[in-house]
């Protein structure tokens, strides 16, 4: 991604450099050539419509090229690959709390393997923050009350700056950390230390503790919708709309269940606003996602954590 952004940046530097040069050369040449000389009078020129059209159209066309190119890069920046591993990010004044789908938790540090697409599902506990890793050319504001998403693929091992880029109060400039990009084997070793089990398993526990399973049963008999396979699928709402159940929708259903109620169900679910922490919401989302078999790889499959482990081990051994 950094390469794509830099390519466009260099293109812009060249184009704008040429425009600057053109204007400055004209300015300086005219300023010198037509400086005041006694007895020489300025030649009055009304203007020239053809010239105006030329110097409106050409810049406009150049702008459109930049616009199009910028849009393409932006689409790539904003569209995480489907098989990316997932990291849940909770920002708060003034730290980054990161939790891998596999269960590792970190503060102000994010360990990732080189060459792996990583998708971050981010929310804030308080004010707006912004997740910014200059080396990867990515930045995304992190908002309270909803998820925003960013992704990257690190191509070189190393330690990179992680900044908060949206002003968030006293210690805004202290809300910095590191993204540690490791060789897959090292990453394996790091991963195997200190995990508390996959995030979806934590979510499953929370799901049971909060009593969600009394209504959201795995058969069609529950008072709430059956959540098996619901993630990523279209949902028909009571008010007639249809939307795709994504992370933000599941989050909203937990915290504001009445807002977008599924067709055919009574508004009996209480809100969990204030009763669950951001981390627990993340775990619940991860759990509900894990109930969706349609999602093939990585985080979607961490319902069967054994298979994920197996994949990881095989990957690790290949590197070894």
């Amino acid at each position, binding site marked *: 991604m950094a390469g794509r952004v830099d390519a466009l940046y260099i293109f812009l530097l060249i184009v704008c450099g040429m425009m600057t040069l053109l204007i400055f050369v004209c300015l300086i040449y005219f300023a010198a050539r037509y400086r005041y000389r006694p007895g020489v009078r300025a030649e*009055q020129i009304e203007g020239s419509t053809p010239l105006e059209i030329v110097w409106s159209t050409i810049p406009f066309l150049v*702008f459109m090229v930049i616009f199009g190119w*910028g849009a393409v890069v932006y689409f790539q920046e904003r569209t995480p690959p489907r098989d990316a591993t997932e990291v849940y990010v909770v920002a708060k004044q003034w730290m980054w709390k990161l939790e891998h789908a596999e269960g590792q938790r970190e503060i102000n540090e994010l360990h990732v393997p080189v060459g792996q697409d990583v998708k971050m599902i981010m929310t804030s506990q308080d004010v707006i923050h912004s997740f*910014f890793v200059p080396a990867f050319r990515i930045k995304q504001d992190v908002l309270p009350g909803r998820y925003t998403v960013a992704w990257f693929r690190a191509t070189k091992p190393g330690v990179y700056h992680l900044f908060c880029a949206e002003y968030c109060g006293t210690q805004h400039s202290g809300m910095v950390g590191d993204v540690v990009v490791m060789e897959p084997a090292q990453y394996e070793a790091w991963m195997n230390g200190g995990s508390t089990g996959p995030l979806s398993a934590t979510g499953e526990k929370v799901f049971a503790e909060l009593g969600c399973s009394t209504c959201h049963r795995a058969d069609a008999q529950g008072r709430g919708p059956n959540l098996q396979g619901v993630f990523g699928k279209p949902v028909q709402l009571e008010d007639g709309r249809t939307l795709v159940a994504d992370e933000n929708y599941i989050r909203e259903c937990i915290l504001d269940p009445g807002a977008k109620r599924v067709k055919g169900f009574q508004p009996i679910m209480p809100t969990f606003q204030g009763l669950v922490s951001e981390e627990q919401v993340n775990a619940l989302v991860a759990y509900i996602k894990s109930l969706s078999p349609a999602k093939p790889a990585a985080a979607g499959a961490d319902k069967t954590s054994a298979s994920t482990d197996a994949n990881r081990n095989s990957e690790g051994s290949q590197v070894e």
Partner: protein
Amino acid sequence: MANPLPQPVERENYLNKEYGVWSWLLTTDHKRIALLYLLSITFFFFIGGFFALLIRLELLTPAGDLVQADTYNKLFTMHGMVMVFFFLIPSIPAVLGNFLVPLMVGAKDLAFPRINLLSWYLYIIGGVMMLHCMLTGGVDTGWTFYAPFSTAFTNTKIVEAGLAIFVAGFSSILTGLNFVVTIHRMRAPGMTWSRLPLFIWAHYATSIIQLLGTPVIAITIVLVAAERTLHLGIFDPKLGGDPLLFQHLFWFYSHPAVYIMILPAMGVVTEIIACFSRKRIFGYHFVALSSIAIAVFGFLVWAHHMFVAGISIYAALVFSFLSYAVAVPSAIKVFNWTATLYKGSIHYDAPMLYAFGFLGLFTIGGLTGLFLAALGIDVHVTDTYFVVAHFHYIMVGGAVMGYLGGMHFWWPKISGRLYPEGWARLAALIVFIGFNLTFFPQFILGYMGMPRRYYDYSHMPEFQVLNVLSTAGATVLGVGYLLPMIYFLWSMRYGKPAPDNPWNAAGLEWKTTSPPPTFNFEEEPVVTWEAYNYDELDAPHPQEVPVAR
């Protein structure tokens, strides 16, 4: 005319007609009100500049060692608020516009002289509220007031600062209203729309933005205050609000506000370039209409401040496209100014040096805007020093250069005195060099990834070299800004009396005396010529000085 001492018998003019504090505080003369504004905005400019100096000193070293983190956050917040709302927005319109709009259209005063005085009082009330707010604790949200930080988290004086801006906003609205009505209704006989100086066109476009945009920031401030004091859920998600709604409302005004700052400067520079190249402006109608186009398109690009804020990809696409659209009329202006120099007879007096400075800095500021409007690049550089550099190139390199150029150009008319030309040229050079030294390194810092509003960068000491350069530049720039204030004050007492038309410039303001009489013209002027008739002015006697009839 050549007598260096104050003349014992001066013609009666707006300055010597009456004396005493009340003759100023109760005046309805647009020229005196312009001077009241000049004093007040200069005061706020130096307050804002002092904050800037402290910011740059803090950033000299990576560690946060000069002030506390909270103090630093208040410094950049109040620097922004003071400079934007109490200096830049009123600068050219309220000082030069107030002084010149009636003169240029051939009117005795603005359409509503008492409302004009009212706007100054509103500005002062707002200013005093802002000063009180700063002296009793200040604000630490950044001038952008982003919710929910501003509505639920900070414990600084948000409501008071917001009300100060709210009140000052009405001053801006009323000034805009006054200009629109004056330009429509009070033009002298023969002063048709296509004979208006482009300064007037620029102010007309500016006034439209002030009238339509400022109420939106006013209502946004009211909503912030309502959420903060009454806990109405508008922006804070915990109360059921939407933080992005705040950003939409805020930028709906605050992007067009950039054009409130830059359009008048473009108007000033147009006048200066025409005068000092002794030429009519190339493509008059295109320059005039591009001002209107900027004012209209300027209202449709606000969300380009929000490409990483969490808006949809498709919304971002539309706003990126429109941002490129608004770049076209700005480009048209730069090309027309450049073409105006072609086959001119160019003089290098101080105002022209400022105009050249404007052209160079505005070009760089405008072209770096293309980087920020490119979606893929904006993701990386937004909220970094790249943005800081970009908007300072527009607002300081553009607007302040234009303001200073205009002050030099019209100072003989305003004060009736000449300033020392050598010092003025030196100051122009110092400002240009100091400005570039301060802000060019920030483009590089931004692309390297240094986020804005960072008090302490000890985590990334590699940013220090460029920050040191920037701080060094800021001190040079500070000297450059102090100089004009000193020699303008000096000239009021010791400067040579100015002739009525020292530059042999076109425009009705030069056809009356320096300084003008209270009602501007002894006789209502009748206009039979086009703007920028330098051919006629230079034709018979190059030294001809039109005098008041």
